[in-house]
């Protein structure tokens, strides 16, 4: 079974600064997908970024980028120029492709607070 670990329950950053959230995972699979989801106080889960394991290039979406280290099974999220609206719970998630469908396995979450 796959496991996902986020070792930072809480983090804080000053507005306009950069912050990195950590995520490690354990799997014996070679082909899989990794995600970062954001859950603001509204509780709506929002997909932030997605990485395909067979792609060596790190995914980037505007101010959000990942550092994907496949051998180390590490998938960290970097948020540049942090904004107050980035305050949220962030979840790292793993998806293994299965013929009968896909399942997302989540980490414990990191509560990020952006301070003015």
């Amino acid at each position, binding site marked *: 079974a796959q496991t996902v670990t986020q070792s930072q*329950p809480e983090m804080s950053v000053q507005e306009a600064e950069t912050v990195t959230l950590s995520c490690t995972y354990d799997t014996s699979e070679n082909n899989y*997908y990794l995600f970062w989801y954001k859950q603001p106080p509204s*509780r709506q889960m929002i997909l932030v970024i*997605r990485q395909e394991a067979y792609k060596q290039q790190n995914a980037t979406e505007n101010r959000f980028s990942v550092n994907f280290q496949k051998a180390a099974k590490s998938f960290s999220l970097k948020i540049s120029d942090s904004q107050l609206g980035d305050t949220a719970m962030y979840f790292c998630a793993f998806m293994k492709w299965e013929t*009968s*469908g*896909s399942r*997302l396995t*989540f980490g*414990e979450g990191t509560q990020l607070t952006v301070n003015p």
Partner: protein
Amino acid sequence: DVKVTQSSRYLVKRTGEKVFLECVQDMDHENMFWYRQDPGLGLRLIYFSYDVKMKEKGDIPEGYSVSREKKERFSLILESASTNQTSMYLCASSSEGKLANYGYTFGSGTRLTVV
């Protein structure tokens, strides 16, 4: 705008009651999922369904059942609610096949309190 709608945002039920949590999606997705979210534990999969009238157990199915009579609707049932089922419940859906690899669409959650 595509949506996954959960019928209740907040719910308070008594111990021993039968509780229904409803989830409806309008994206014609084949796959639907129920998770519970607890502080420090993240999201844990309760049940999922890849097609109408089919269901599969997730990681924590004990005390729960599900129903999927129509493609767009996936219900989570607490047969006899207990205080340890007080939690946030999230419904999600996704397409089948390779499109599922793009992740899920989530509802806004139901915060259930069992007293």
